[in-house]
């Protein structure tokens, strides 16, 4: 293989950390959600890179299958998250997560 495994891992780590930074620092709920999507993508890159470089010898497909499951979860999460955001917006006219601290009584 031309591209070594470590390259993928480094890029994935970078993607993950950027996503993390976004999720932690954006005020907008939808932006937070986008950060989370980035993190999930990083995970998928890892899964497939390991599949291609390690698992393919065994001729099984766990990495791919896992990735599909992760995509599914991501889709579900996005759907629910966006629904929450819209519901939030409708009731409170804001999507700023800073303003949402109902958990603190």
């Amino acid at each position, binding site marked *: 293989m031309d591209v070594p495994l470590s390259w993928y891992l480094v890029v994935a780590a970078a993607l993950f950390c950027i996503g993390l930074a976004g*999720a932690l620092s954006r005020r907008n709920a939808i932006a937070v959600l986008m950060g989370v999507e980035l993190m999930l993508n990083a995970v998928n890159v890892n899964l497939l890179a390991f599949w291609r470089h390690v698992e393919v010898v065994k001729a099984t497909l766990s990495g791919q299958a896992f990735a599909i499951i992760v995509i599914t979860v991501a889709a579900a999460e996005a759907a629910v998250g966006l629904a929450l955001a819209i519901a939030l917006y409708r009731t409170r006219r804001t999507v700023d997560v800073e303003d949402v601290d109902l958990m603190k009584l």
Partner: protein
Amino acid sequence: MTETFFNLTWLIPLFPLAAFAIIVLWTNRHRLLSTWIAWIGIGLAWILGWIVFFQAWGGFEELTPPTHKYPVPLFSIPTGTTSLNLGFQVDTLTGVMLFMVPFVCLMIFIYSKGYMNYGTKDVDPRYSRFFAYISLFACGMLGLVVSDNFLTLFVFWEIMGLCSYLLIGFWFDKTYPDPKRITPKEAGLKAFLTTRVGDVIMLAGMLLLYSQVGSLTFSDVFSQETLEQLAHTYAWGNVPWATFIALLFFGGAVGKSAQFPLHVWLPDAMEGPTPVSALIHAATMVSAGVYLVARSFPLFVAVEGGSQLAVVAFIGAFTAIFSSTIAVAQNDIKRVLAYSTISQLGYMIAALGIGAYVAAVFHLITHAFFKALLFMGSGSVIHGVEHGHHHSHHHATGPEGHEEEGEFDANDMMNMGGLLRRMPVTGWTFIVGALALTGIFPWAGFWSKDEILADAWKTFQEGGHFGVTANWGFFVWLLLTIAAFLTAFYTGRQIFLTFAGKPRTAAAEHAPESVPSMTWPLVILAAFATLLGLAGTPWANQFFEMIGESAVILGERLAHGEFNLVIALVSSGVALAGWVVAWLIYGFRPLTVPVDPLRRPLGPIYTLLENKYYFDEIYQAGIVRPAIRLAQACYTFDDKVVIDPIVDGVGRFGRWLSDWLRRAVDNPIVDGAVNGVGRVTTWFGEFMRATQTGKVQNYLLVAAVTVFLLVALYVFRTYLPDWLSALGLG
């Protein structure tokens, strides 16, 4: 003659049973319909019963074995590898019972319509139910006589007990102002429990018999081999099983036939409606005990000279005389008859005790007719007096109308007198019954009673059968003859107090004759009481011909006294003497005040007799109250003193232990540590509270930091040695 109808015998008890079910479930509200259903039920039973009787009279020539005819199993119950077969049978004993029972029942059913005031404003509120109960009772009695085994016999026996309970307590809401007087509900209870004592003894005997023989069917139990075996195996010591079991069975008979010492329930059973007294407590149910002894007679005589016959003879003869003495001092017209019944049952039992099987059964049949007649006559009298009382009460203008309602006792003979003029049919039929009862020639009682006395005398003269010693014969003869005198005396007293002289109260003055549905049965029964004896005259003893056959198993040993003119004359003379004495005391100078002329001369003896030898009081103090006290003690033991307190104590100990553990171990040591942790936690929590902003990204940051720290920790753990060594510190 074909025996087709024998196969239908089992239907006989089902007709009244069906009547019972129909009345209880559907026609309870409709009085006339209920009456007719009950009549049809018993009527069909009567027709079929008489057909079977006449067929049985015709004989069973072609059937073997000769004693227990036509046993037909109806169903069986599995018992391990074997099974218990239950069915019905017909033999001549069954036959004669089927002659008597449904017919007397029918008469009483018809009588009941009038007695329960059908069609008047006084009609009993539970009228239909009364007919249901007596139908069920008829089912019980008929089932009893067609049973081919002791188990169904016992089942029907107990069903009769139930009916007796229900019917004695029929007016269960009745109360009396005198707290000492027994109420119907108490009388019912007393009857059921007293007979239950006998029943349990009988049940024990039956179970022992079953254990020994492996069957309860008569034909199995009374086979020659079985009887031999029972006579020669021993329950313990030298008591053979046959003797022991026979005595236990006799216990049942004592309870049901109200023999001493379980006689106390029968007089109080007179609290029930009079047709009930006639039906259950004179004609049929009480004779079931005698029937039981007659039925299991082979068992009683299986052991030659055993003590069982002596016990039977003694109890019977003693009861006969014992209860007739009590009857002398009773004022309640029905109670006199009740004691008379006990006494007559004693005759039958005593006859069985000396082996006079045929005479006992014959007396059972004749007695049923004339005692039913007497009871129904007394019912008619009471009914009349009650109506007279109401009449005089409502229309009276004079001071005699001011008797307290409820205080007046229509059963009391002291309140009667001169009723023959007011109620001629009742009066004359009653007198016919009385003549039959006292054994005056040629009424039925003469023939049957005379046969018993003759058999007893013959036993004395020639030695008894079945090992009965001659002296027992004399003992029985003597006691029964004295009892015959007393019978005539108290019966005469009853007649004179009730029917002779002048009315002693306004009620008796206005007593009307009863309605035809009540008087016609009286007339019919009077005819039977007159003529039935002719079936068993010494010259043409049809009865012996028939019954004797049913006891062929007893072989040549069956006692049959020939007619003994001397004995007949003696007993007739004694009976006439009784009548004469009664006339002298009560008839010659009719009473004007309600005080018995014998009270003063007899003094304490009269009081003793009036109080029935204080048996009720003795049982109350000796058995009932100790039982209740024992029950109370057991409950106290259970709930207050021992068992439950122990349980609670264990529980309390558990709680105390846990409490102690809490105080001594938990609080200072474990709890101390826990509290310490708790305080630290509180402090830490106060601190951490500041971090709880409620903003999700803050939490997320903490999580990210944590992840970083974990990764860093891994890095340091893995590579710190390398770094140190690289720095030259390793």
